[in-house]
């Protein structure tokens, strides 16, 4: 186990995990309000395409990220209107949103395939000479540096503010929230706007920071990994950090192992996030822990 490998794995998992973390945080907020969004994959794709397009058009990756957040939030409003305003089935609406995102992102991204952009610059933490281990490990784009603070902020938002209390109440029992004088619908819309913005940013990180390209379907199922990650993290933004590193690390780990000469099956490794989540769920089910918001999905969780 050479040190370069360890450095590489950690660096790799931080890079891959960042977009997962943003997506997970958004979904946590939404689910805390009682809404499960299976269309997260679609939101991420729209964010990736819009972010890339905006960066290509304006030349500024920062504007690109902002555009991605706006696009993600806007797309999620379609979902919000249907689910909150019209009381539509959350699963069906979520899946429809996923398909919408696949198609919309293809349409938006098409003129920009192959366009070269200046991606989010990597900002090294000062104090390391180039080539040193420290320089390699601590040189990331701004979204990576912001990931942990945003998680903390989300945690604070959910658990330490009035708004967050209202949110959690709605997620446990909309009726109780209503009786307490809150406006469940307004809170849910707000939650979904926040979730949409974060989902868009998550997608944009992949196109504008990691790969500097746009290709159809480039999120490759990360939206669903994020949904699994929400459960794995027990709907808690702080645990989400650990989970994102872990799940993000899985992908990077097998590539780093290869580069170091070891032999590992990429497919078995890629299964681990899902298997882990399933395992965790079984353990909770066994111990009768009920950690999910009670009114999540209105019949999504909660057997009886």
């Amino acid at each position: 186990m050479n040190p370069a490998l360890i450095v590489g794995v950690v660096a790799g998992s931080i890079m891959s995990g960042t977009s997962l973390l943003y997506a997970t945080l958004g979904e946590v907020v939404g689910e805390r309000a009682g809404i499960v969004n299976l269309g997260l994959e679609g939101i991420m794709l729209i964010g990736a395409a819009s972010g890339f397009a905006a960066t290509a058009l304006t030349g500024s990756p920062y504007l690109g990220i902002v555009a991605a957040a706006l696009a993600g939030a806007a797309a999620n409003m379609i979902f919000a209107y249907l689910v909150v305003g019209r009381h539509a089935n959350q699963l069906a609406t979520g899946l429809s949103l996923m398909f919408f995102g696949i198609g919309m992102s293809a349409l938006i991204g098409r003129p920009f395939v192959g366009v070269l952009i200046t991606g989010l610059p990597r900002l090294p933490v000062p104090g390391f000479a180039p080539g040193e281990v420290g320089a390699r490990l601590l040189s990331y784009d701004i979204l990576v540096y912001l990931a942990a603070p945003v998680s903390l902020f989300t945690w604070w938002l959910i658990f330490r503010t009035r708004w967050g209390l209202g949110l959690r109440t709605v997620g446990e029992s909309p009726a109780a929230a209503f009786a307490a004088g809150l406006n469940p619908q307004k809170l849910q819309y707000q939650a979904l706007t926040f979730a949409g913005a974060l989902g868009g940013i998550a997608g944009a990180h992949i196109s504008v920071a990691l790969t500097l390209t746009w290709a159809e379907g480039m999120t490759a199922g990360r939206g669903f990994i994020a949904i699994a990650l929400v459960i794995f993290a027990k709907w808690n933004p702080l645990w989400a950090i650990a989970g994102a590193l872990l799940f993000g690390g899985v992908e990077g780990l097998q590539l780093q192992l290869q580069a170091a000469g070891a032999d590992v099956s990429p497919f078995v490794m890629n299964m681990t996030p899902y298997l882990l989540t399933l395992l965790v769920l079984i353990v909770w089910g066994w111990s009768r822990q009920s950690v999910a918001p009670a009114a999540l999905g209105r019949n999504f969780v909660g057997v009886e």
Partner: protein
Amino acid sequence: MRLDGATLWACASARAKGFAFVTAAALGVFATLLVAAGKDPLEAYIDTLTYVFGNAYGFSELLVRMIPLMLTAVAAALPARIGLINVGAEGQLYMGAWLATAGALALPDLPAFVLLPLLTLLGFVGGGLWALVAGVLRALRLVNETISTLLLNYIAPLIVSYFIFGPWRSPETASYPQSPAFVEAARLPTFFHSRVHFGLVYALASLVLYWLVMTRTRIGLDMRAIGGNPEAAQRLGIPIIRYILTVMFIAGGVAGLAGMAEVTAIQGRLVSELSPGYGFIGFLVSWLAGSSAAGIVTMSFLFALISSVGDILQITQGVPYAVVNILMAVILFIVLGRHSVGSVAR
């Protein structure tokens, strides 16, 4: 309840009119998008109709697309009747394909009339067992089936990839990761010279059986009782656990048949990209159809037609095929936005 012809017709035509409106509205929204992108939607729509209805190949491809959709829709509809949500048809399809491939590769010397029924059985069992995992977890009250079937969806294709990159890697095309080609005897027959294959029979049989069971048997009655009010059903002595397990197994099995048909009829081997989301689209088809057998046929037809629009857009207008998903989504959005549809469990 006695359903006479007049009532049925009134019901059906009311729904049809409602749906025609929805489709027209969606086509309009999609057309606006296309125009904004500088394309010609009228030409695309006309081309699609000529292609699908004026052309034997176009029409046969429509049927080819409908087959897996109808199967995965039944896979979602059946559990829906007892209040279970199965979004795992995608994974069940892959596992059906996987087990069928195992059989095809292990027994190449059997004659077709023995091999094909065997492969069909394997396909059914493969998908069924995969769904059963979720069923068991639900029956034991450990994990909600929506989430477990969703997670299993992503594990199944990885298992398939592992095998085609590893133990089942085709030596003759060591150049390309896929299983060896199936022998002629393992190929599901097609009709005439099109790609419409025997899977159509599986799909129609599944639908007919589904309809018969749900409307004409005691089992169907029990199932609807469970779906309506599980506690009351339990008090009436209906063995819920047994139903959960059986229904999930059968539902997964039907989806597994879709996978088996894909590898034995269309692909002729196991490959890593078997399904462009048939499992999810099937779920949506079933949901739109209110889990009714006739509705499933209609909705599958509609979605297959939409896919054809995508083909035409790609070939004649240079629009990526993926864009057609917008049309599909808009139809769904409009339906979702109107009053609640059908009787899918909550």
